């Protein structure tokens, strides 16, 4: 599995990629494969406040529901509107086209605790869910 090295990862399989003063957030291929076919991504409205360690949205697949957790506190600056009509993009291209939200962080300290690609790969290999 190819895991991008230009971003960091939570143990709960969200990725966080800096883009200017924003953080782009999505889920990993491992998570998408585990969830199976994704049918709906429930995202917050632009402007919604998010809290580090708390859920800001939910993903539905034919098999399971998963929460989307933020690593930082801040506000939602943008959401990926393409996912509303094409949630299957998350299965096909979770690291790029199927980004979920862009967060304007109030404080980036939550990022320090995240895993880099190598650590995240070991985490997945250990069968973590």
């Amino acid at each position, binding site marked *: 599995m190819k895991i991008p090295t230009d971003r960091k990862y939570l143990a709960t399989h969200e990725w966080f990629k800096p883009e200017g003063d924003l953080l782009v957030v999505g889920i990993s291929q491992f998570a998408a494969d585990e969830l*199976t*076919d994704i049918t*709906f991504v429930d995202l917050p409205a632009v402007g919604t406040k998010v809290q580090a360690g708390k*859920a800001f949205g939910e993903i*539905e697949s*034919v*098999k399971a*529901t998963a929460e989307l957790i933020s690593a930082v506190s801040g506000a939602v600056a943008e959401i990926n509107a393409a996912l509303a009509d094409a949630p299957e993009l998350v299965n096909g291209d979770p690291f790029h086209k199927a980004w979920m939200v862009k967060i304007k962080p109030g404080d980036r300290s939550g990022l320090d605790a995240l895993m880099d690609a190598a650590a995240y790969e070991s985490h997945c290999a250990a069968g973590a869910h």
Partner: protein
Amino acid sequence: MLQTPLHDFHVSLGAKMVDFAGWHMPVYYRGITEEHVHTRTNASLFDVSHMGRIRFDGPDVQALLQHVCTRNLKDTAVGQSKYAHVCREDGGILDDVIVSRHAGHWVMVCNASNREKILAWLHRHSAGRKTDILDQTLDTAMFAVQGPAAVSLVESRFGVPVGSLKRYWFVEGSVLGMDYCIYRSGYTGEDGVEAIVPAAAVAMILPYLVSDGGASGECRPAGLGARDTLRMEAAMPLYGHELTEDVDTLSAGQGWCVDLSVDFVGAAAMRAIKAVGLRKKLVGLELEGKRIARQGYPIVRDGAPVGTITSGTMSLTLDKSIAMGFLATEWTEPGTHVSIDLGRKEAPARVVPLPFYRRAK
């Protein structure tokens, strides 16, 4: 973890494997949606070898099976199968099974997760009866071919006339010393068959069904994921979801497989439950929106809990969020509006008749 005789086949096709009831099983090969749709439009091969297969011999077999099964087995003909529940004295469901009458013996197919429990239960109730109980699960393989093309496919590839079989009847035979048994049954809401063959023979049979790695043929492999979404559309109950030890067969909406005129373990309790009237019923629900009701989510009405979800998914055939659940009897009329508690949100839902999907005959 246990492996079925088809394990290497799954792995060679790159299936996503999971632990299911102690077995290493494929959840999907190409994707649940594609496998689901292919089953509804063509035919799919499912490995169901994880399910328990128990053989019964001896003069008292029918008496034993009638003692533990909810169904009246008296008129079961040779070549006929019957779906039934095995229940505790209080009516709680221990398992749902299919029993089949052969010329000189019977076979029971039970759920993988309940095999040890059911074997223990059978041994306990066979005390004093002349029966031999043999667990054949590891010596045999079982697969299903399901879909509108399934029956003609099995007939043309194997030359066995299954098209003339009625549903829940079976045909058995032997080819090159290999015993097979083919049942007109399944768990998808489509026409099709389920077959039991020797474990050592199944690898030889597969190329007749699935060609080209299964990616482009008429019959393609499908995993447990599609099996679950297919059975949900057809409103077929699943042990551990709609059926548990905490519910009796009548309340689980499966009264059609109960004959209270015969005596079986749990019959007295069910007669009492029937006399008082059912306090809850299994219903179908359609949710507004795209959220999905999962097992255990509360069903609420005017802010008060009135039931619990047992299964839910996005119906790939209907493109609707569907669920089944137990609901207090007073709210079970189709059209009744309820809400599903999703945790941070609620989704409006209404009661609908089951099944969600019925195939064109």
